[in-house]
Every structure is written in structure tokens, then in C-alpha cells.
């Protein structure tokens, strides 16, 4: 029994070391700094600058976070404070199924609905033309994928608030919303921040759905109606040719290593906060 436990627990270390060893040759050729901050991307010439991909990832993630933020917070408050028992019973399977749908299904849905919606309705509002395969579409699809994940954690966090506290606040004359605002939200900052932090980490590593709607063009741009090229999409798109160009595989493994380190760090920090709040 203990061997299997140890195997699982040592997995992140093994993955990290494995990816690092594969990525190591690239450090002989380029400095860590230029790998991350250079925008020169020409694998055939041996130039690997990950800046466009990193900004692309960050930008899509940020947008999805903006959409997730109000929806999750309000829905979690409604489900834990205001709603009837019956609705909670209905919502549980809804959240489960939303969380369980494969990302490729979200991608198909994004192509069918979100992409035309962005190019036909959103872009004309800003007098812009857009193919619809854009950062905005990626953000919307990602946010819908992250909502069940974040919502589940928020509900868990809000359920730790003692009923007595809320009743005390209500008996002092606060309205339902006021007690939610002052007791539930204010008392749970670490938990709320962690839930969103974990949501961000999930969004950052999401691959297929984003890759299908985001356009995959290498450039640094801050227009949400233009295409971008997030880091996971880069890895997924180029696995075929990476063995035929020298150093390309090392560069892509470096990208995977980067993803692993960033996401593991996010997870460690915010999981720690959640574990701490749960124990209180």
C-alpha cells in the first residue's frame, strides 16, 4: 500500500525532472531570460522566444477570470445563503456534468456558437472586423469551463461559515444580502482568493478547447478581438514536427516545464490557504 502512495506522491518530482532533463539542451543555446522575454520565434533558425505565447496565455486567462469572477461569487452566495434545498439538489448534477464534459466538447461548442457570435455581433460594436477566432472567444469558453470548478470550491468554502454568525447578523437587522456581504464574503477572503487562484491555474493549463477557438497566431497583441497563441496550444500543435527541427523538442519541453512549475506553484499556494481555512 505504501509503495503505491509513494509512487503517486513522487509523480510531480519525476515529471519535473523528466521534463527538465529533456529541456536542458536549450539552456546551452539561449539564456533563460531571452527564452522568456524574447519575441523572436523562428524554430528553423534556432530562435525560441516564448514571450508571445506567455502573454497569449496570460491574456486569455485574465479574460476568463474576469468572466468567472462575478458569476461564481454570486451563484455560490445564492446557493449557500438564499436558495431552497430543492434547487441545490438540481444544481449538484448540473455542476458535476458541466465539470465532467470533456474540453473538446467545449471547443466544438465554442466554434459553433461563440466564434460566430464574436465575429458577427461583438466585433461590429467596436467597428472592428474579426474572424471570431480570438482571445475573447478563448476567454469566454475558458470561463465556462472554469465556472463549475471554482463554484464547487466556493460553495465548500462558504459552507464552513457557522450558521450562528449569519443568524446573528440577520437578527441585528441586516438584510440577507448585507449579511452575505459582510459575514460570508468578508470572513472568507483567503478561501475566495484561493478558489479563484486555482481556477486561474486551471485556465492557464487548459489546452484543447482554447486551441480550437483562439486562432493560434504568433504575435504580441492586446486587442481581445485578435488571435493569440497560448503556451499549451503551442505544445499541442507542434508535436509532429518537433523532432525534425533541432532543439525544437527541447524548446517545447521547456514550455511544458514552465507550465508545470507555474501551475504547481499556484496550486501549492492556494491549496495551502484552502486547507488552512478548512481546518479553522
Amino acid at each position, binding site marked *: *500500500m*505504501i509503495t*503505491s*502512495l509513494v*509512487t*503517486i*506522491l513522487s*509523480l*510531480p518530482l519525476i*515529471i519535473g525532472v*523528466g*521534463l527538465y532533463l*529533456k529541456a536542458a539542451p536549450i539552456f546551452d543555446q539561449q539564456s533563460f531570460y531571452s527564452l522568456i522575454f524574447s519575441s523572436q520565434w523562428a524554430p528553423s533558425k534556432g530562435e525560441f522566444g516564448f514571450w508571445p505565447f506567455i502573454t497569449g496565455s496570460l491574456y486569455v486567462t485574465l479574460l476568463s477570470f474576469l468572466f468567472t469572477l462575478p*458569476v461564481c461569487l*454570486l*451563484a455560490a*452566495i*445564492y446557493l449557500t445563503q*438564499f436558495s431552497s434545498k430543492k434547487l441545490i439538489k*438540481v*444544481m449538484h448534477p*448540473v455542476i*458535476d*456534468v*458541466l465539470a*465532467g464534459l*470533456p*474540453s*473538446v*466538447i467545449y471547443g*466544438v*461548442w465554442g*466554434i*459553433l*456558437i461563440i466564434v460566430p457570435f464574436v465575429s458577427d455581433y461583438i466585433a461590429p460594436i467596436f467597428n472592428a472586423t474579426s474572424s471570431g477566432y480570438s482571445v475573447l472567444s478563448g476567454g469566454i469558453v475558458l470561463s*465556462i469551463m472554469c465556472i463549475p470548478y471554482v*463554484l464547487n470550491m466556493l460553495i465548500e468554502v462558504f459552507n464552513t461559515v457557522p450558521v450562528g454568525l449569519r443568524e446573528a447578523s440577520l437578527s441585528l437587522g441586516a*438584510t*440577507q*444580502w*448585507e449579511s452575505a456581504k459582510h459575514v460570508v464574503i468578508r470572513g472568507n477572503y483567503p478561501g475566495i482568493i484561493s478558489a479563484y487562484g*486555482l481556477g486561474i491555474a*486551471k485556465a492557464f*493549463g487548459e*489546452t*484543447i478547447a482554447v486551441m480550437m477557438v483562439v486562432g493560434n497566431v504568433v504575435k504580441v497583441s492586446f486587442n481581445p478581438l485578435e488571435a493569440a497563441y497560448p503556451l*499549451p496550444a503551442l*505544445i*499541442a500543435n507542434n508535436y509532429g514536427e518537433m523532432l525534425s527541427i533541432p532543439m525544437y523538442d527541447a524548446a*517545447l*519541453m521547456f514550455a*511544458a516545464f514552465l*507550465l508545470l512549475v507555474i*501551475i*504547481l506553484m*499556484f*496550486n*501549492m499556494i492556494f*491549496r495551502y490557504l484552502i486547507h488552512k481555512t478548512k*481546518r479553522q
Partner: protein
Amino acid sequence: MRRRQIKILEEKFFVFLSAFMTYSLIVVLAFIILVIFVKGFNALNLDMILKTPEGGYYYGGEGGVLNAIMGSLYIAFGATLIAIFIGMPAALYINVQLIRYRRTQNTIRFFLDALWGIPSIVYGAFGFTLMLFFGMNASLLAGTITVALLISPIMVRTFDEVLSTIPKGLHEATLALGFTRTETAFKVMLKQGFSGFITAILLSFGRGIGDAASVLFTAGYTDNIPVNLDEPAATLPLAIFFQLGSPIPEVRERAFASAVILTVIILIISLGARYLSKRYSRTNLK
């Protein structure tokens, strides 16, 4: 008086807004499933499910995606089996042997949760390096192992969550009767937590069958149903992804039909998990 009105207005506004957000989630889920079904229904026929791609399939010719359905099922079954062998003992160990060490338990849970968060593309890349290291090609075996790594933490944590709710008294009673810890684990805890075990299996299976990024590098793609572990295997998510990239409308239609197949499989699994976990927890000692 005015402050009171504002207060009530604020209350009404936010209660309405939060209710709206909650109900909109149900609408979004219904919308997603509806869109997939409506779009995919046209191209969906028995050939899609019962045939492998025939000549010229990717130009609109005859055939179906049986290769991908079988490939996905093989990989998900194999991976779940491996994950059971790694995950079940690990979860039992946390809840039986470590029952007196709360701190250690919590630390382990913390690491497992962090492990759960690693994106599947990283597992895919790692599986790829592992594959090259052992000199294998993209194959059923490589894909299965990669997916098994991906779903093991899920398996452990889901099973563990149910095991941790089993009353301590039961545990102590078995020890008082002279059971060894291993006997307690496999004869009592496993039985009591069986509903959790089923949920864990189905959840991992669902995750394994729907994941595309991890099998992208490792399982390859083929038009045949694999008969050996060292042959490449097609998977349903990748079949959807590749067919959707085609410029030919018929092939794109089939991508939507394949999406219907995958959605139905996932819905069956996730509703089945719900039903079975209820059914098996009925006989539990409370």
C-alpha cells in the same frame, strides 16, 4: 426612510442577480448539450458507430469512427485498471495506517490536490519523453500509461474523500476484534467505502475517456482498431478535433456527430456514477 429604501432595493437587486447567475448555469449547460445534439444529429447514423473509416473517409467517403470509440474505451479501461491498482491501496493506506497521524494525512491530501491541478498537456509531454526514453512509438500502451498517471490522483482523492467520512468507531471495533490493519483496510473499509470506490472509478474513467491533450502525443492515431498494445490507437476526442479541422463540410458534420457520441458516453458515466453511489451507500453502517 430613504436609507431603508436603498437597503431594500440593494437586497432585491442582488438576490435577483445572484439567482439569475445560478439559473443561467442550468441554461448554459442545456444550451451546450442542445447545440451539440442538434448539430450532430444530422450526420449521426449507425455507420458512424459501427464502422471504421473506409477509403476516402476523410474526403467524405463511407465509414464511421468505431476505431476512435474502441481506442478511447481501451485506453480509458486500461488506464482505470492501472489507476485502481495504484490508487485504491494508496487511499486505504491514508485512511487506515495513517489514521493516527492527522498532520501527515492532511499534508498528503494537500499534495494530491496539487497534483490534480497539473494540466493534462504536461502529462502528455511527460508521457512523450518517457516514451522516447524507453524507445517506444506512439501506442496504445504509452497512451494508457499516460492517462493512468493523469487519473491516479483523481482516483485517490475521490475514494479518500468517502473513506474519511467512515466513523472511527468502526475502525476501532475491527481492531478490537483482532483484525490486522490490512484486514481492516480490505475487508471493512473497502466495503464501507464501496460507493466512493465506484464513484472514483467512474469519475476517473470519464476523465480518461474525454481527455485529448494527454493522448495527443502518446497514443497516435490510426484508422484501425488496435489489437496489440504496441499499435497506435485513435481516440474519440482527437477524432473530433481532427475531423473538425477538415475543410470538407461532410467531414465536419461527422465531427459534430462524434461529439454527440462522446457527450452521450460522458452523460451516461456521470449520471451512472450518481445512481450507483446512491445505491451502494444505502447498505452502509451509519
